[in-house]
């Protein structure tokens, strides 16, 4: 890849923060990023946005400050924002906090054993929002005690959030203020990591075997569809067919990928059924690398599904045109000795693809411009 097509913006203000999972395009045309500190005990997550016009990173919130959860308390800290940034039409960006950061002084955080520990437990996941109209951050308090919320999706039509807890993997809903919580039960052995709002009618997610779970957004009926995403032959689907990212395409299908899988897939509701299609991975030209997984799905305005292909050689920027059914390789993403990769992506009005680092410290926000 021509290095000119790739830019990166380093989170210099928080150089010890080590990963970034959540990335979402706001209605205000800014890219919102959750910056995590997972590998340092007592670490704190930070909320940023990126002004695509001024090309500037703005620090919005220190999660320990807004939640009031003291990192010196000896409990697991508010160190993570996982796949939980939800843009709302009123220019707010909602999010939930997650836990994988060890309590101060501990070498690691064990989600299962520390859940009920009298001193090292995680206080719980908070729901908060950043209001870009008046630059305010509001915390609604703990919505799930002692557990993190790694996955959150907003259905504005149903006026509720759909979330998943970790480590117990329960699906729950709550209203726009984090109240009226309804526990819909344990839906997966390991927690779902991808959830998509389908026209405010259904919420789709998958369990860790890749079984598609359809939730009626208004009636809250949980339907285990019996439809499974593809998985490699050597596996029974456990943690390989597990839906890793999903996005609703211009053809009203949900495009998705698996956790350890080299295939693009799509599914769509048809009456009470869910139809599934494995698209394979139809490359324009063969690639000289072993594919590990597909990440960071985003559609541009020309029906191109941009995504990152993680391989043993590094990460490639790819795009799949749903009209032609062909995958184009935009090249291996390396710049200044840094490998670029990310788990979630967003595309701005100029067709530029944004994603944030999981692998480089300090973390960078990356931008791939196909038009350069």
């Amino acid at each position, binding site marked *: 890849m021509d290095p000119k097509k790739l830019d990166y913006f380093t989170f210099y203000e928080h*150089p010890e923060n080590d990963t970034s999972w959540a990335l979402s395009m706001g209605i205000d045309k800014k890219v919102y990023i959750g910056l995590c500190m997972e590998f340092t005990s007592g670490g704190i997550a930070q909320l940023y946005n990126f002004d695509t016009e001024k090309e500037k990173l703005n620090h919005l919130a220190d999660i320990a400050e807004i939640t009031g959860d003291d990192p010196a308390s000896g409990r697991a800290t508010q160190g993570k924002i996982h796949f939980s940034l939800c843009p709302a039409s009123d220019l707010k960006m909602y999010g939930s906090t997650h836990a994988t950061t060890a309590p101060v002084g501990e070498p690691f955080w064990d989600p299962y*054993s520390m859940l009920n520990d009298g001193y*090292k437990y995680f206080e719980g996941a908070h729901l908060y929002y950043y209001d870009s109209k008046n630059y305010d951050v509001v915390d609604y308090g703990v919505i799930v005690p002692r557990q993190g919320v790694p996955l959150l999706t907003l259905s504005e039509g149903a006026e509720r959030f759909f979330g998943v807890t970790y480590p117990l993997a329960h699906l729950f809903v709550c209203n726009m203020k984090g109240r009226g919580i309804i526990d819909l039960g344990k839906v997966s052995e390991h927690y779902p990591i991808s959830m998509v709002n389908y026209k405010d009618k259904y919420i789709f997610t998958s369990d860790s075997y890749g079984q598609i779970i359809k939730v009626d957004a208004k009636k809250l009926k949980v339907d285990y569809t019996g439809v499974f995403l593809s998985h490699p032959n050597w596996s029974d689907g456990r943690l390989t067919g597990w839906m890793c990212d999903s996005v609703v395409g211009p053809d009203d299908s949900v495009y998705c990928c698996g956790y350890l899988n080299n295939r693009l897939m799509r599914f769509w509701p048809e009456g009470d059924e869910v139809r599934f299609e494995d698209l394979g991975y139809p490359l324009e030209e063969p690639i000289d690398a072993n594919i590990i997984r597909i990440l960071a799905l985003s559609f541009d305005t020309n029906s191109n599904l941009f995504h990152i292909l993680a391989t043993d050689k590094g990460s490639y920027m790819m795009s799949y045109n749903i009209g032609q059914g062909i995958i184009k390789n935009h090249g291996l993403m390396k710049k200044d000795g840094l490998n670029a990769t990310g788990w979630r992506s967003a595309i701005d009005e100029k067709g530029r693809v944004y994603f944030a680092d999981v692998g480089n410290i300090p973390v960078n926000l990356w931008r791939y411009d196909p038009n350069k």
Partner: protein
Amino acid sequence: MSNKKIKRRTATGPGIPSKEGESPEIRKLRLERQYLSQPFITEGSVFCFSLLDQIKGPSIMVNDYKIADLVVYRKNGVLYGATSGDENHLFFMDKKKMIVDVGIVEAKTINSGSMSIGYDSMLYFAATDADNNTIILKHDLDTDYTDQYPLNYSGDIEETGLVIEKDMVVGAVSNSWDKNIYFLTANGKIYQFDISKKIIHEIFELESGFSKSICADGSGNLFMVLSGGILSRLNVNDRKLAKSTSRVPSQKGREYLAGAEKIVYENGKIYGCTSQDSYLFSYVVESDKVFNFGKPDDNYDIRSFIVEKDGRIYGVTSTKGRGLGHLFLYGENGFRDLGNIAGFMPLTGWCNEPSKMVVGNDGEIFISDGDNRSKLFLYFPKI
């Protein structure tokens, strides 16, 4: 691209080592408290099983995992269980620890399931459907089965034709004295199921506020816990109820909530646990006295327990909505917290909501998870 110099945000950096104004002594005490917390890893060996691995179709799907009840057939030590999900299966675990699906219970939706083994080597299973009618089903436990390949099992679930209308069975016990099975229902009725005559009839009705647990002493007495934690004894012969002056333990001021999650009869004593305040206790029938053993840990409920042949008691605790219960031992030295119920073979899994617990013939303990998509755990205590 930004060329800003790296700077530290000291106010929001990683954990501050000491609190403002905290003296070194207080800080030392605080840090010591952090390390005086519960054990993380289960003491003993835990094996975790999925119900997916079937040798006989139809397979138990992942959403049909909620285990309703467990019993062990003492003749051969085989564990039997029932699930209550979208489909309701009866299954057993053979000596090689293979899960075998006996079949689907033909009821619309099962809200609960209580099992008991009769003297005729039949497993009787009370299943309540969506219309709140309870049907009594049976399964022949002496059905031929070999755990040698090719694996084959031809057992079936049969209907007895007996129905308890508009009521749900919440407890079942086999009484060796008259060889009948007794069912306790949600409306407080006690039904006698005469196995030899294949008839079922109501013999008593309890006053409201009773606990959903029942046990028998093998001499014609059934034991229940009434409202306020009053232990009571029903003689099935003359059908007279005798109330004890002793009560199930509870915290001060919460006597009106006192109830027992489970009671079992062992050698002249009733052992029990409470679903609120998490007390373990025994009741000596002859002296009419209750002995409170105390609380195993900071969880609110003791969900279940078993009494080993050597008198040691193993139990599971949890708190509603908190998940990941703990295992405990009550022995000569009092309570011992044995940690989370964490299994790593053949599957990795944690017991989120421990529910049922039975002891096998060799002292091994089976624990079910009462959460959706639960798993079955096999625990070998540390020797």
